[in-house]
């Protein structure tokens, strides 16, 4: 229990660091030095020290948005088996609970964006609401597959200890498609490059960034931290799936996990460096591919695992 809580706090503390790894990789591809690896900590500290400006037209929902989205991310992280150890909280069916807690966080971000009555933010909100719908279909397809393989509905049953390598042993090659589908979900849910460009300067093409334009100071800091944690949340899935090694010693285990996690973040960075953002009407096509892959993996597995 103590170990799980320590891991939970460590994960929160490490999430801004890992997000900076992406920037470093992108800078490397651009032939630049890039910002320091601790850049996001500096940004967060700077934002926390600032004051907030609220528009006269906004209501309490606007102030609630950042807090709700951050607490949803923290809550989701509680159920996540970090480094293959058991999570802080776990009950039967928590996978569905966690997905909808994240959905709640998204709802409040969207509500806050709509509250500003800015046309840009409404547009971003519409996109933010649309793409995760397809992601949800993919997630549930993957959950159906995992349920088929393990017969359980908890994250702990999929990602702790030797369970993950068990998934690979039973399902084999179709798990590769699950990893790919998860990676596409990761890119979509966290507004990374082929879907959304976090570094663009044009509001018309943004999804996530445009929704938080009106937030300032500490509020914006909370949103940023929430985004880092959410990114870590999804990256942990992929990291555990590509590196299902389970070492006996907790510390060795954690180091292996951190290495796998860096691999995932570097992969995100490479994707962002070599790809351009998709045209908006192609994005749904891209996300739908993840659903097709997950569905495909499920059907194939049903053929084998009887």
């Amino acid at each position: 229990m103590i170990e799980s809580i320590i891991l939970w706090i460590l994960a929160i503390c490490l999430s801004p660091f890992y997000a900076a790894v992406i920037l470093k990789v992108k800078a490397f591809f651009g032939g630049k030095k890039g910002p320091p690896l601790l850049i996001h900590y500096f940004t967060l500290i700077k934002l926390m020290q600032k004051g907030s400006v609220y528009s006269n037209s906004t209501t309490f929902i606007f102030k609630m948005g950042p807090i709700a989205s951050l607490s949803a991310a923290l809550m989701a992280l509680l159920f996540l088996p970090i480094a293959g150890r058991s999570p802080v909280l776990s009950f039967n069916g928590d996978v569905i609970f966690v997905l909808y807690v994240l959905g709640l966080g998204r709802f409040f971000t969207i509500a806050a964006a709509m509250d500003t009555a800015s046309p840009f933010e409404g547009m971003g909100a519409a996109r933010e609401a649309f793409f995760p719908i397809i992601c949800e279909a993919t997630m549930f397809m993957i959950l159906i597959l995992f349920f088929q393989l393990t017969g359980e509905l908890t994250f702990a049953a999929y990602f702790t200890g030797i369970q993950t390598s068990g998934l690979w042993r039973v399902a084999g090659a179709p798990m590769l498609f699950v990893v790919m589908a998860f990676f596409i979900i990761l890119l979509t849910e966290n507004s990374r490059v082929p879907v959304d460009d976090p570094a663009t300067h044009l509001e018309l093409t943004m999804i996530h960034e445009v929704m938080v334009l009106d937030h300032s100071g500490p509020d914006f800091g909370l949103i940023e931290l929430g985004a880092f944690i959410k990114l870590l949340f999804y990256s942990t899935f992929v990291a555990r799936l590509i590196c299902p090694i389970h070492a006996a010693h907790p510390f060795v285990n954690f180091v292996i996990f951190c290495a796998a996690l860096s691999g995932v973040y570097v992969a995100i960075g490479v994707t962002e460096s070599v790809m351009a953002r998709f045209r908006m009407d192609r994005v749904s096509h891209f996300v739908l591919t993840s659903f097709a892959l997950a569905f495909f993996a499920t059907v194939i597995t049903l053929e084998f695992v009887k």
Partner: protein
Amino acid sequence: MIHPVDILLILVLLSVLFAFASSRLPVLIRILAFQGVVVSIVPFFLEHEMTAGGIIFTTATLTIRGIIIPWSFYSMIKKMGIKREVETIVSYNASVFASLLLIVAAPMLSHKFNMISFSGGTLITSTAITLVVAGMFLLMARRNAIAMVLGYIMMENGIYLIGTALSSGAQHIVEFGILLDVLAGVMIMAIMLQSIKQKYDNLDTAQLSKLKE
């Protein structure tokens, strides 16, 4: 554990999925080349002992299916300066959906067939059915003539898979005969495509309805 043939067949099914989703001709040709290569190396994993003749015929199949046919299409696109986008009748998202339905339906169908019990994966019949129907779908749902020919080749890949599953060694001659037929068909199609292109300046088959006696 999964049989090695099944891994190959999963790759084939995946190539069907990507073929339905791809909107560009060069990508489609590359996918078909990959599919051809994978389909033709299936016999190596299926049979325990291959005769020298079997090995020669399988290698020849591999060369024709994986290299010669895709390469001829590639050079045709380059030489004639064909537009790279494929015009569709059924949209790409709907096509992906159709391919998923197909991948679900094919195993059910293959259980009904209950054809033979051969030493191999459980997936081979259903993959073959998927390939045949998917090829038919590409023929119907794309308006570009090259994409239609590629659909025809996909169908032929499916027929080859069924042939490999049914036959045990001696059927290579027949398979090879079919393959030469396909090769001849592709060559004739190439000439036809060239004349369509010269006449109408694109490969949209809808234009052909304008032909009068």
